Every structure is written in C-alpha cells, then in structure tokens.
C-alpha cells in the first residue's frame, strides 16, 4: 500500500472533543483527531503537553489514576470505548500498549512472557505456535529461539522491549499504543524498533508518543503536535516537518522553545 492510499483508509480511531483532568489540572483540552487504519500517528510535544495522557485515554488507562476524569469520545472501528457495557479488559485486548521502560515479567521466562497475555485472557490454542508467531512478528525470534526458557531479564534492553511488543502482539490487537518505546535504547536497538513499527503498520494501526522528533519523522505517516493539553496541529508528517502551518509547531520542530 502506498502512503497516499494509506491516508485514504477509513478511520480506525476517532477521537472527538476529548478532555482529561488530573484532579484540577486540565491535561487535555478538547482534542479531536482521526487515525486511518494501517497508519502510524506520532504524537510530539514538550513534557507535560498531554501526549502520554492522550494515549492512556485511548485504552482507558487514564481512568485508573486516582482523581482522574475524562470526557469526550474515543471510537475504535466506530465503537465508543467509553460507552456502557464496554469491558476495559476486552478493550485492552484490541488496543495493546508498549511502555517507555521494557517491563517484562521479571520472574518469567522469555516464552512465558510472550504468552502471558494469552494465559491471562484464558485464550487456548497451541501456545508454542502462538509464542513463535508473536516473537517473529516482533523480530525477536531468531535471537531467542534457542533460549526460550531463559529468564526474560537475560535479554538486552532492546530485546526486552521487543519481547514486550511480542507480548502485546500475542493477543492479536488491532491498535498498538507505544509510549516512548525507544527512549531508553541505543541507536541500533532503536533502529530495530523503528523498522518493526513500519512492518507492524501493515497489520495494525499504531499511535506512538515520542520526544525524538527525528524518530517521529522517520516512522510516522501523520504527526500531531500537542502543547499544554491542546492539539495545536495535526497533518501529514512531511508537511509538519517541512512546512508547518502553526507558528507554535514551527517553533517546536525548529527548536525555538523556552
């Protein structure tokens, strides 16, 4: 699929007038945007701009924070995720998440980590096959196939992060949220994660939060710039980095902040 065709895909995620609070702090202010299916959306912005809160609203992790509140709509395939009768656990099966720090279960083996989500969700089937499939999808299989029963902590940081991606992929999500997935990794491990994101885009819709603007430029189809809880600008990545419309975006991507 070429990039132009991709942008014409129907919207996988639709966010309408999303507001979020931490106690009295208004962390997200009326954010509306759409993410076409099989595309990568990068969220950029300075610390505290609401970008992590935004992705945490998509899979309803924001509501777990004490004192947190949220209004507005988040739709995946047209279904309101915050509607009544939507079980957050079912939702998170469809919307996977990968965090900044690789967080494999420390007492489990590589294999057990890969299938942990399947076991927790009571999904049956051939676990060995499912583990191999998700480890291959996460481009980790060849590096770990001979030591599947070693501790997950025996892996390097980059491998641990790809293990966490495999764990998220095992349960077959349609959307993958990534919150700074490569910020703790060296450039080679980062390049592997970025290549992986491009491959996964063929099967999934991805939203990635990143502090690294070059990373956003490299991996995403569209980029959204957040500032102080507001969505300032959302457009094709090439446009945001070569010819942003908003002066605040211009200042941020050229390094004229603060």
């Amino acid at each position, binding site marked *: 699929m070429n990039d132009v065709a991709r942008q014409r895909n129907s919207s996988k995620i639709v966010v309408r007038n999303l507001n979020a609070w931490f106690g009295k702090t208004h962390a997200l202010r009326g954010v509306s945007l759409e993410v076409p299916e099989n595309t990568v959306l990068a969220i950029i912005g300075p610390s505290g701009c609401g970008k992590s809160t935004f992705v945490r609203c998509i899979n309803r992790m924001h509501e777990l924070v004490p004192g947190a509140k949220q209004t507005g709509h988040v739709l995946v395939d047209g279904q309101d995720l915050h509607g009544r009768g939507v079980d957050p656990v079912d939702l998170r099966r469809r919307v996977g998440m990968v965090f900044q720090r690789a967080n494999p279960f420390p007492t489990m083996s590589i294999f057990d980590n890969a299938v942990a989500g399947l076991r927790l969700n009571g999904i049956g089937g051939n676990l060995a096959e499912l583990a191999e499939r998700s480890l291959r999808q996460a481009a980790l299989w060849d590096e770990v196939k001979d030591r599947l029963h070693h501790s997950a902590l025996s892996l390097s940081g980059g491998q641990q992060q790809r293990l966490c991606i495999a764990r998220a992929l095992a349960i077959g999500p349609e959307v993958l949220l990534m919150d700074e997935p490569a910020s703790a990794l060296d450039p080679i491990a980062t390049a592997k994660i970025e290549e992986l994101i491009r491959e996964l885009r063929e099967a999934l819709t991805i939203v990635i939060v990143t502090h690294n603007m070059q990373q956003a430029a490299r991996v995403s189809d569209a980029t959204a710039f957040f500032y102080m809880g507001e969505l300032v600008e959302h457009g094709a990545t090439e446009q945001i980095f*070569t*010819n942003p419309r908003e002066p605040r975006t*211009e*200042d941020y991507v050229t*390094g*004229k*902040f603060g």
Partner: protein
Amino acid sequence: MALKKHTDKSYDVELDDLRSKLLTLGGKVEAEIALSMRALAERDSKLAEQVLSADQEVNLLELEVDEGCRRLLALRQPAASDLRFITTALKIVVDLERIGDLAVNIAERAIDLNQSPALRPVHDLTRLAQLCQAQLRKALDAFVDGDPAKAEEVIKDDDLLDALYHNLFSELLALMMEDPRNIRRANSLLFVAKHLERLGDHATNVAEMVVYMVRGTDVRHPHSRELRGRPSRG
C-alpha cells in the same frame, strides 16, 4: 527571516553565518556583472581582467556555503523554515555562482571586442544589462527580506527580459546583414546578450526558491505539474 531565536543560540550563529556568506557571494556576483558590462561599454580590458580574478573569490565562497549547508544538515537535523532555508541556500548558491561565470564570459567577450574598432552602439544591450542587474538585485533583496511578493515580481518580469533579448537578436542580425564585416563583432554581442538572458533565468530561479523558502510552496514548473495532475506540495 524568523524573529524568534533558537533555544540553542549557537544554531542561530551558524545559520546567520551561512546567510551572510550567501549575501556576500550575491554582492560579489552583482559587482562582477556591473564590472563586466563596464568593461564592455568603456572598452576597458583591465576592468574585464578584474572580473576574472573576482570570480575566484566567488568560487571559494560557493564551497564555503556548500560546506556550511552540509554541516548544518548533518549536525542539526533542521526542520521546517530552517530546512527550507538550508535547501534554498544549497540551490541558489549554484545559480549565483553560475551568474558569476556568465560575468566572466561577458568579460572575455569584452576583451575580445576591445581589440577591434567599436561597432555602433546597441542601445537595447545596455537596457537588457540594466534590467538583468535589477532582476538580480531584486531577487537577492527578496531573499534577504524573505519577501515572496518581491520574488514573484522577478518571476513575472522575466518575460520583459526575454522580449528585450528577442529584439536585440533581430537588431544584431540586421547589423550582420548590413555588412559582413560586422558579423564577428555582432556575433560576440549576441553572445553577451545570451549570457544576460541566462543571468535573468538564474535570477528567476533564485526568486522561485525564495517563494518556497518563505511559503513552503513550490512554484517551479507549473505546466509540468499540471500534466502530471499533481498539486504542488509543501
């Protein structure tokens, strides 16, 4: 162009340095053209020799501008208006340097013509030279001021310059038909006119890049883009 400063101030210093090198280069090229036309009008081959040596400074500045652009691209990963400025610099430096070469070509023609008796004055050639210099000056001003409206005037006025060149062509052709002894000199003047017309095209290129630099829209080759049925992209 932008009033706001970068958080890392040394980045501004590097960008300013690149900008001032380009302006120096632009100024030198303007002077070369003026000098070469004087060498022709005043029949002064010494002035023409000065053009040849001035062009070496322009060549060195081109190398410095290129190097500055490469360093900024590699070390700063510029984006948005900075990226457009640097890619513009990389392109217009080629046009400016080429204008310098055209001045050298005119100077060489002047040296050659100065060895024969003067042909009768060709007024349109003076007008063409003035118009070309005005176009170049305006394109450089548009770059300095980040003024796309001024750049668009340059693009529009290139038609005047082309019309003048075609008049001149007929005038020189008539001179040649009048007396075959005129052919060699008239032919040299025709080359000068052609160099000036080319100079105007390079000034237009600079102006087009200024529009891109400021607005982010590419105004080059509108007809070719129509054929491909593709809108201009930022």
